[in-house]
């Protein structure tokens, strides 16, 4: 049968197993079945991972740490072969150290009193590192640098799924109408069914932002749950950082009146086709649009774990737009400085100064 033969030859082509004769046979078959050319073209392309996205550099950094631990006793045992063995050991340490972007992921079990909810796990990222995990319900979370996520080891049946965030994270929530998903931050709680969105709630920043990419969420601004703001795709909501703590009294005073706080909704910011500044970090891109240099350098500090200071205060007010495929901080600074609007140097301690 023609069709079956076609499938077979297409399979062999994908596997690079076609003989000369088969190549010609395939060409002829394709002439009789022109529609098959489309699917053939599709198969010859590179296919992408659907389930998970990794950062090989971070994996390598973690691996080298483990290798270092595993290698220590081995090297001691090989003491007699002195010089070469030792130098090698030094090289391992050097390699591990030079990759100082080591993802220091602290997995801790926090045991709570017997009446408390199930045991919590915690994922922490330091400055300059990002991490990704899959929660027990299949929800995927990308955790940006300098952030902390508390989540239960298992989500109970028929109960809300509650996680707590400090810092910035992108959530791709698994739909489960019976168990609504909630993200608690210092500034608000987000109620979710199934959707993907970004939350930015760093304790050192004066406002917190929820950005919705897909689906629908409600942002709850007070503990009583009376102040709810619904978000539509491609909208973000910015609220003052400490609103949640105050809101209880405010609600009591004003009761049915709306909260008088500077809460505002905006569309998400597009820098380039398909690059949103709010979520670019999830795909390992650093993106900003018309942002003061002072804020750009704060991002760089967070992203690369470096220190940046200003020797010329006026430079803080320069505005920049850019998308970077995170090489290293020098590449980014070089590119920004190539506009000739500022220069920078590194001092003896490695701190960067804008001049």
């Amino acid at each position, binding site marked *: 049968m023609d*069709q*079956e033969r076609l*499938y*077979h030859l*297409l*399979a*062999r082509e*994908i*596997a*690079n*197993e076609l003989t000369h004769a088969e190549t010609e046979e395939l060409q002829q078959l394709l002439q009789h079945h022109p*529609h*098959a050319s*489309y*699917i053939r*073209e*599709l*198969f010859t*392309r*590179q*296919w*992408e*991972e*659907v*389930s*998970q996205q*990794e950062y*090989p*550099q971070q*994996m*390598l950094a*973690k*691996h*080298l740490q*483990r*290798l270092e631990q*595993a*290698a220590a006793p*081995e090297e001691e045992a090989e003491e007699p072969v002195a010089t*070469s063995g030792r130098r*090698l050991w030094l*090289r*391992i340490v050097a*390699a591990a150290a030079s990759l100082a972007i080591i993802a220091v992921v602290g997995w801790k079990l926090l045991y709570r009193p017997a009446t408390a909810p199930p045991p919590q796990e915690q994922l922490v990222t330091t400055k300059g590192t990002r991490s990704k*995990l*899959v929660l027990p319900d299949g929800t995927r979370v990308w955790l940006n640098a300098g952030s902390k996520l508390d989540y239960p080891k298992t989500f109970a049946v028929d109960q809300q799924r509650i996680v707590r965030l400090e810092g910035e994270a992108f959530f791709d929530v698994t739909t489960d109408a019976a168990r609504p998903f909630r993200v608690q931050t210092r500034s608000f709680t987000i109620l979710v069914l199934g959707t993907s969105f970004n939350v930015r709630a760093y304790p050192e920043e004066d406002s917190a932002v929820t950005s919705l990419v897909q689906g629908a969420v409600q942002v709850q601004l007070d503990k009583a749950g009376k102040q709810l703001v619904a978000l539509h795709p491609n909208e973000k909501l910015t609220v003052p950082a400490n609103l949640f703590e105050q809101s209880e009294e405010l609600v009591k005073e004003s009761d049915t009146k709306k909260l008088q706080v500077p809460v505002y909704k905006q569309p998400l910011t597009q820098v380039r086709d*398909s690059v949103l500044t709010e979520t670019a970090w999830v795909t390992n891109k650093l993106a900003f649009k018309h942002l003061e240099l002072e804020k750009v350098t704060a991002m760089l500090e967070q992203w690369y774990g470096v220190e940046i200071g200003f020797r010329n205060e006026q430079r803080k007010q320069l505005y920049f737009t850019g998308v970077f495929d995170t090489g290293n901080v020098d590449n980014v600074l070089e590119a920004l400085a190539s506009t000739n609007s500022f220069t920078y140097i590194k001092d003896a301690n490695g701190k960067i100064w804008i001049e």
Partner: protein
Amino acid sequence: MRNNEQIRSLFERVCQDDMRAYNELYLALCKQLLHFSAAIVSSFHLAEEVVSDVFIMIWQKRHQLAHVQNPAVYLYVATKNYSLNTLQQQKRHLHASLELLDTSALLIAPDAESGMISAEVSQKIEAAIRSLPARCQLIFRLVKHDQLSYREVAELLNISPKTVDAQLTIAVKKVTQAVRFDLSGELAQSYLHLDS
């Protein structure tokens, strides 16, 4: 993308204590080994440790590995064995095997951003692949994504190259039908009829 020659030369340099080649080898293969392991142990977290353990073993035994003919297959086989061991420890399975694969770790699809296909077609392809038996999905991924040859897959899974050929043909058929069904419902109907 896997280039056998490149992997082989990196591996040779690793055997001669080259740490940079070791890092490059890890970066070149860690993702695909991670997914392969995750399908067996059903956890990306565990799989990352498995892959790390495999590479620790490689470094520790590097002076005894110069004879390895096909380093890529060697790494896959090691990953398989370490994964099965892990599974055995984790779940206290008496017989850990490749029969129970978590296929969600294996799923691949054409890049919808390339503009060649719509998100809808992409989803249909994913659904078609999901409907395949687990081992068939694994074979499709190993050949299409990880670019293993028939012989390499056969060696890894202890099956014959003919079986690999047949399983891959089934996968191609399923995906083709899913896409064609989308292109033209009627055409596909008659086509499905012809097939059966």
